[in-house]
């Protein structure tokens, strides 16, 4: 099957029966979902087993400052300067807030 058509059809079929309520309007899970992209290296819910920094329970401002410093190349890194640039400041704020709340 033509892939473009298949995709378009699937989209039309997929959302036709669903409630119009969008997840993005104050999506309660956005911070959780964004933070989960960090867990591969930093541990589930930010609890690292070692060798990478644990993020769980870290003060929000401290973590946010660090992420912004990586993002602006002010703080040298092997990889975090490259990854942090993939997120907006608003997204980094959500991530820092979410990890800070993991006690």
């Amino acid at each position, binding site marked *: 099957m033509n892939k473009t058509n298949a995709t378009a059809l699937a989209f039309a079929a997929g959302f036709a029966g669903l409630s119009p309520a969008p997840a*993005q309007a104050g999506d309660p899970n956005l911070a959780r979902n964004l933070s989960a992209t960090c867990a591969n290296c930093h541990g589930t819910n930010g609890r690292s087993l070692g060798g990478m920094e644990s993020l769980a329970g870290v003060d929000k401002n401290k973590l946010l400052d660090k992420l912004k410093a990586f993002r602006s190349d002010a703080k040298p890194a092997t990889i975090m300067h490259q990854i942090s640039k993939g997120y907006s400041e608003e997204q980094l704020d959500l991530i820092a807030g979410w990890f800070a709340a993991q006690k």
Partner: protein
Amino acid sequence: MRQFDRREFLRAAGGAGAMAALYGCGVAGSKASGHVVVVGGGYGGATAAKYLRMWSQGSVEVTLIERNPRFVSCPISNLVIAGEKTLAEITVGYEGLQKYGVKLVHGDVVAVDADRRSLKLASGDTLSWDRLVLAPGIDFMYYSLPGLDNAAAQETILHAWKAGAQTLALRKQLQAMPDGGIYALCVPKAPYRCPPGPYERASLVAWYFKQNKPRSKVLILDANEDIVSKRGLFMKAWADAYAGIIEYRAQSELRDVDVANRTAILEFDKVKADVLNVVPPQRAGSIALQAGLIDVNQRWCSVDWLSMESTAARGIHVLGDACFPAPAMPKSGHMANQHAKLAAAAILNLLAGQRPSDQPMVVNTCYSFVDNRNVIHVASVHAYDAQARTLQPVKGAGGLSSAPNEMEGKFALAWARNIWADMLG
């Protein structure tokens, strides 16, 4: 198979108190309910099973079906081939998923019926679902290499591209090879599982030869136009450390194998090796084909990137290497783990009658060893593009190591430890 009930789930999870402790705080209450079956317990499937339970606070029932008794990691397995790690060090059991209340079934799925929302196991048991997650990994297209299209040949000319018995068998072939021998590695055309993996393997085998069999050679026969991943970094590492050991030949697609003579048959050439290691062309795992989900080039499963739901069958989500990738998205364990979280969040929304988030993101990090200590990475961040209806690499983000370094060697092993726990711990 009988349907297990809710009390059984709570017992399996050690009661509600234990569950609450696992889920942590700051999680919005979930309205999702239903039964999700996950087929395949690798980087994608195991992560999906765990996160579905964790994020639903136990309100969604999850059954994980996996054929192998334990998980053996492909990432880090090239260190086993080089003699730097043992197979036990890259093996993790599934028991850690019990504390999340994941119901584990060891078995082989033989048939998926998308319309009836049920599947059949080789044991004859059947299982029904509200949502199915298929994380079947890859299978090899041996039919494109007639000489290798039988079980006996595949035990002689190894792939070692699924970690486990083949990993150890390749290690043994390299150990038995006399000094002065040739190890030839055939790389298939992209896309294939783990883009930098062949070049890491070539580096680590060269490192092993340099220490133990210094007159031996590594010959890379690459079907691609050029080195597929981390090109400049690998070329520099080879020039610096393995000059006279590694020889790289581009545009050298394998056409067939003369198994008895360990000879790679190319279009215009034949290459005899002492150890011939063929990474065959790949497609989505066979169960995806049986389920009718392969809809791109007769090889891959196209998905809706908001939910990882198949574009060929509603209610079935496909993860990991089996997917037809979004732009610049590699087939990696790390990416499969990210697919799993995207899918878990979307499935819980769908089971609660809500749309999936319209702004999913995924990250990839691949570390490659160029010797026993020094490592290089490639990283990328991908965000949903509503107009293009796909995940696109975020401009200005991601990148490569500047040079091989020991610090990232430590990070690579810490990455493995943490991602294995993120899946299975």
